[in-house]
């Protein structure tokens, strides 16, 4: 059984390190509200920008601090590659574990989202939407890594 949609194993280590670092930086910048200290203000192309001040822009150019966009791009790309990189011994049982983790991550993620949707109001809800950008990926990675850890350390009873 060959899986064709997985990334090569050699990218796993690199993307894992990149994901952890960028995720920690993203969280830290968000918690300490420090995006403004790392401003990379530039002109960007926008499909749509309903500018808080000024006229809205459709299919045009607008000014924006892109430090958070860059960081989110790194988190998502490295996260996807890390989550879907081949394991060293990639076989059908690993594929099954991956599928289970993905299913449970999806269920847990939408459970949490529904809970937050019902019980969180006001501006804090924007934080929920922000976290929802990568929460499923994060839950999947944690769950899959834990299950693979259990798998690699499963008891060996030889004769």
């Amino acid at each position: 059984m060959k899986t064709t949609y997985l990334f090569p194993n050699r990218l796993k280590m690199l993307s894992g390190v990149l994901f952890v670092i960028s995720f920690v930086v993203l969280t830290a910048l968000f918690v300490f509200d420090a995006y403004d200290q790392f401003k990379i203000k530039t002109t960007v192309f926008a499909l749509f920008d309903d500018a808080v001040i000024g006229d809205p822009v459709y299919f045009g150019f607008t000014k924006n601090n892109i430090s958070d966009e860059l960081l989110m791009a790194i988190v998502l790309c490295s996260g996807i590659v890390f989550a879907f990189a081949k394991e060293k011994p990639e076989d059908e049982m690993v594929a099954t574990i991956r599928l289970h983790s993905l299913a449970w991550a999806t269920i847990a993620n939408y459970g949490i989202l529904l809970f937050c949707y019902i019980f969180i109001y006001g501006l804090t809800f924007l934080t929920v939407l922000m976290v929802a950008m990568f929460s499923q990926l994060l839950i999947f990675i944690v769950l899959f890594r834990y299950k693979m850890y259990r798998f690699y350390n499963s008891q060996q009873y030889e004769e």
Partner: protein
Amino acid sequence: MKNSIKVQRAIHNLTQQDLAEKIGVSRQTINALEAGKYVPSTVLSLKLAKLFSKTVNEIFELEDGD
């Protein structure tokens, strides 16, 4: 589902690692198979049967509740 992989492995004098390498899975997968924690795909079952020179039915057996 029950299986007699452990018995067959003993008959052929293979370790879990040997068997894993011969059919191209990880050692942990063989371990899970023997413990009955994992039901293999048809391809893997056929590979095991071929290696042990048995039919799939001789290695795998349905249980109540399957």
